């Protein structure tokens, strides 16, 4: 499903104007939250490229962590700029994705099993980051070496507005890729594979090639998101970028929004980040853990009562209402 064009253009214009809006002292904070939403929505979109075809990965933290750490470590130790290092990160992540996807596809590891294999991969990457503490700073994380001042080459800027526009462009690029996949032949092939692998193979679909392709695409985009997030926060930590926690958060946001629609991952990410930010501010330093407790509780409730996601459920409702008058016209 595609968002109507005029509406989409208006949305982009409004988003582009956000930094110019008067928000008194709140501006830096609002921009900070918006940047996080855009980057994580991009990552969520990357995840949903696989998720919507039944390849439910619980280990996207692996790709996120590998991407972010590769770029940061190459910059800190060898002075390789994040553009080049980001390229290296993408190649490494693509390799990791292919190494995981090939046997999964060859041996028909699907469903729960696929989830658990990817979960193990995510844990392996997180533990390796912690184990190589001489390089990575272990579980304390590591900061990006500052260049002092703005530098396009080092992707470091003092002004949040630069990051905001960069994140906006990244998010739009992610939507474009999503829409391209949605309209391509690969989508029909992947849907057929998701339904029944053997049947898909029997009509001449190259199952292994498509599965590896979509996994590598999703992983590389996730790595780009990881590099972008690391550059913005200028600090990386194995727990915020790798492991089960972050992998589950990505999946939550996407499922909450709805993974079968273009804007679903964005809506879900915006809601979960806004919710956790709101709870964090509402509770502040009092009642530590309460904000996250309510967050967890709401997630369980959402999953039970809105199984096809918020955006997905709304979109289905709108479609039903649109179809109803049309049906009435035909009947009359």
């Amino acid at each position, binding site marked *: 499903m595609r968002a109507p064009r005029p509406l989409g253009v208006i949305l982009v214009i409004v988003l582009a104007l956000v930094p110019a809006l008067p928000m008194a002292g709140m501006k830096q904070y609002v921009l900070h939250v918006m940047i996080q939403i855009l980057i994580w929505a991009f990552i969520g979109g990357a995840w949903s490229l696989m998720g919507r075809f039944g390849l439910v990965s619980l280990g996207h933290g692996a790709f996120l962590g590998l991407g972010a750490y590769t770029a940061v470590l190459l910059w800190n130790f060898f002075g390789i700029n994040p553009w080049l290092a980001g390229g290296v990160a993408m190649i490494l992540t693509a390799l990791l994705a292919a190494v995981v996807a090939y046997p999964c596809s060859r041996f028909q590891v699907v469903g729960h099993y696929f989830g658990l294999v990817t979960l193990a991969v995510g844990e392996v990457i997180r533990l390796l980051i912690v*184990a190589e503490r001489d390089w990575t700073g272990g579980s304390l994380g590591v900061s990006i070496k500052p260049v002092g001042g703005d530098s396009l080459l080092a992707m470091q800027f003092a002004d949040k507005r630069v990051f905001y526009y960069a994140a906006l462009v990244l998010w739009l690029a992610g939507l474009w890729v999503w829409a391209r996949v949605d309209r391509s032949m690969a989508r029909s092939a992947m849907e057929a594979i998701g339904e029944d692998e053997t049947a898909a193979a029997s009509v001449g679909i190259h199952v292994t090639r498509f599965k590896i392709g979509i996994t590598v695409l999703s992983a590389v985009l996730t790595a780009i998101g990881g590099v972008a997030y690391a550059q913005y926060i200028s600090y990386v930590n194995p727990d915020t970028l790798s492991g089960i926690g972050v992998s589950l958060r990505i999946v939550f946001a996407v499922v909450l929004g709805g993974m079968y629609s273009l804007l679903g991952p964005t809506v879900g990410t915006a809601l979960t980040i806004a919710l956790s930010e709101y709870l964090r501010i509402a509770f502040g330093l009092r009642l530590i853990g309460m904000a996250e407790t309510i967050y967890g509780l709401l997630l369980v409730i959402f*999953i039970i009562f809105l199984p096809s996601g918020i955006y997905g459920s709304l979109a289905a409702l709108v479609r039903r209402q649109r179809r109803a008058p049309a049906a009435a016209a035909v009947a009359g």
Partner: protein
Amino acid sequence: MIDPIFLVEAALNGILLGGILALLALGLNLIFGVIDIVWIAYVDLVMLCMYLVYYLVQVYGWPVGLGALASIALGALLGIGVHLTIITPILGSAPINQLLATGGLLFFLQSFATFLWTTDHKSVRLSLPSFEIAGIFVPFTRLIPFAISIVAVVGLYLFLTRTFVGTAIRAVSQDREAMALMGANPQRIYIVTSAVGGLMAGLAGALLIFQYSVHPFFGGQFGPLTFMICVLGGLGNMVGAFVASFIMSEIISLAGVIWSTEMGYVIAFVVFIVMIFARPGGILARRG
């Protein structure tokens, strides 16, 4: 070069750890095999039971045995509670939603524990003697939990194979539609299964608190490992899960001594990934 005595000691520790992992894995495997839903938050229920024993024994001065019984009771109640409130409404949902509902429970339990008890590590220390065999010290604080786990595992095996309810549980895990057609009530079997699975979690909690300190993120330490043992052993295959527990605990223990703790887990997870490809039905499954 590492002194061989350290390796022997590590291997022994691996066996002792394997007993407890077997307890965790069998409890989860039972639920997984019968209800076909992965309780991502299973080890977080164990964490709650550990806190209960800590408070009863360390703070309120209850005898250890009574604290352990309370923990087992809490585990069974939690198992039933989770089943009725979270699992029952999503029995027919897509697998991903089932996974996420219990994943949300994991977030909830972790942060609620942080809220109630802060992130401090808490432990109960018992002063029991150790005995020595050939220069290796074996502490009773680890040997007794091992023995109790083995007894519990054998007990579970007998319950599943020798009793009427146990037979019903195994029947549901083999074919749930056929069981419903035979007039059995799956919901009742599910509740019994969840209670037994929770009971195992409670017992594991009571045994773990004497060896490990408990904190809100305890689930992350054993959770992923427990799912992997279940899959490695083969779903619903109790003997397989038992064997897999010891394989994993030996890998972690030996690699932990030779390299580092993290590398021990890394190797265990890599072995898991490779084994899924090599033997998807579990280590004891016959190749089809």
